């Protein structure tokens, strides 16, 4: 038998890993919450019959009733409708906004980590400069320069957000490129692009994905903050930040105008954070 002793590949390892994701409680709870939130904002037309932008000046600042589930705001708009439709806008912008820095940061981080030397030095100096400024200060300044609006939000978040991804990916690549499988790929004469794309990235990108979950939360907060300052989503488009800002004046008499959209931000953030934690648990090395 000697060297021709046959393998018994143990496929039960793979089966166990696949069956594991729903056993991580944080992931399960986060996903459940997110699905509920997404179902509510996507199914908004089914859950409300009011147009979120139609004003009814005869019914301003009315309390919760059968007609208006959460009452109306100072212009007589239905708060429940605005909450649902506002969530649509915020979540859509946040999910798109997280993609750009993710892609840009991953690419630049891979290049810096893989090639090292001067390329690394330049990219990481730029990262240091961006990191030197507080996140919100830079975002607000950029949007202020670019002018309010959705595209300004994307540009600002990308310009500031990529550095975190670049740092994570660079660090992971620095570790992974010392692994012998990378040397093996190099000794097989594979191109740098192929080694980065096929051999390194799949092994390191999970960390960036985990971070992206918490980054969406930060982006939602940034969008809400910008809108609160009047720099984000422009009226009359409904959005949680504007709602919180407008409701603030009536906090003592009509607390639900501020608290309910604030709660929506918290619940969404909690869901995404739980997913991030759960993913980290699931993908942690040694778990397999």
């Amino acid at each position, binding site marked *: 038998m000697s060297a*021709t002793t046959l393998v018994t590949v143990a496929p039960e390892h*793979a089966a166990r890993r696949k069956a594991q994701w729903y056993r991580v409680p944080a992931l399960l709870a986060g996903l459940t919450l997110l699905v509920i939130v997404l179902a509510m904002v996507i199914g908004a037309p089914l859950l409300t019959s009011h147009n979120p932008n139609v004003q009814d000046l005869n019914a301003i600042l009315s309390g919760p009733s059968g007609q208006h589930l959460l009452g109306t705001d100072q212009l007589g708009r239905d708060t429940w409708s605005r909450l649902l439709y506002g969530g649509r806008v915020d979540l859509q912008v946040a999910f798109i906004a997280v993609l750009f820095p993710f892609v840009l940061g991953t690419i630049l981080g891979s290049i810096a980590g893989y090639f090292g030397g001067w390329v690394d030095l330049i990219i990481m100096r730029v990262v240091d400069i961006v990191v030197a400024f507080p996140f919100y200060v830079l975002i607000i300044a950029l949007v202020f320069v670019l002018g309010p609006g959705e595209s300004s939000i994307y540009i600002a978040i990308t310009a500031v957000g990529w550095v975190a991804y670049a740092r994570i990916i660079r660090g992971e690549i620095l570790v992974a490129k010392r692994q012998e*499988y990378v040397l*093996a790929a*190099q000794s097989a*004469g*594979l191109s740098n692009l*192929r080694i980065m794309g*096929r051999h390194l990235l799949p092994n390191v990108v999970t960390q960036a994905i985990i971070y992206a979950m918490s980054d969406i939360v930060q982006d939602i907060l940034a969008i809400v903050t910008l809108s609160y300052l009047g720099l984000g989503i422009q009226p009359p488009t409904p959005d949680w930040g504007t709602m919180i800002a407008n409701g603030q004046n009536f906090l003592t008499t009509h607390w639900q105008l501020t608290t309910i959209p604030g709660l929506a931000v918290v619940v969404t953030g909690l869901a995404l954070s739980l997913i991030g934690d759960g993913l980290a648990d699931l993908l942690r090395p040694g778990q397999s």
Partner: protein
Amino acid sequence: MSALSPEDPVMTGNLAPSAADGPLLTATGLEVGFSVGGSIASRLRHEERILRAVDGVDLTIQHGEALALVGESGSGKSTLARALTGLEPLNAGQVALDGKVLGKRRSRADQRRVQMVFQDPYSSLNPRLTVAGMLHELLRVHQIVPRAQVDAYSRELIGLVGLTDDALPAYPRQFSGGQRQRVAIARALALKPDLLVADEPVSALDVSVQATILNLLQELRSSLGLTLLLISHNLAVVRHLCDRVAVMYLGRIIEVAPTGELYAAPRHPYTRGLLAAIPRMTPGTGEGAPAVTGDPPSPLRIPAGCRFRTRCPIAQERCAHEDPELTAPAGRPAHLAACHFPLDPPPGVRPGTAVRAVPAQSAAQDAKEEPSPSQS
């Protein structure tokens, strides 16, 4: 037995010794260094220190032979192996394959000719690729076989290293250490290399598993005519597998000889000490003076003259000034040693006659009696 037969149409080609005369690989004046403590400030002040991991190595590897590179940690044996594989840039010197000097950046076709098996099978396989995935990629990139045969050739490769077809769709984590090392060998063989460099291929494995990998390498040698460069600190493994041994100390080769001769009659005092330091299976040899005293010097401060003189029991004044060259005694041209006062062969050993106790041929016979992996 098709998988192990040299007549097999798929496996012949580059693996078979080429008709060309002369050595397969010739390395001359190789130097590889790393700068250490090289912060920008110290670089500006010219305080950068160079660790000379490989410090002037000449080496030839003949077609079909198994050459061992032995030495302790810090001897530069792994760095030399990586330099020969093209993974480490050379500071000086050149590597030629079949007389053709390889460029500083090897072309893909040149790179294919030297393949490596790494020490740690847990880090040398990409955890996100299946066995089939990694083999197919190499076969396609290098166009080793026509596209239609990629699948069949992968199955043949995996059979060659003693694994069954169900290994192909599996991920590395589904294998044990020994099985992973088989996969790593199959990956290296996929490119039909002229030279297989194996860097401590069994030292990360348990003893009982080591034997399976050593036997596999021996079988592959006899069935494919593979040329092997084995890097190891384990002199028992080397003696079992190799025809010729090169001993490294602090970045230099200090002795090269056919295996039997080196073990029976070492000429360099370091080699003799290294051999004497190996624990023997004979009980009760525990007391007495150690074979080699002292620690090896740092590769950052290589002694002038002979680099072994700081630990050498027979060092003389001359050793501190003159760096000895690799020379062979009269009548034994294959036994080179870099020592001013080389040792005489011990009584009872007739130099030049020591041969490998087991010719590769008999190992091949053993291999042929094994059941074929595809039949079981």
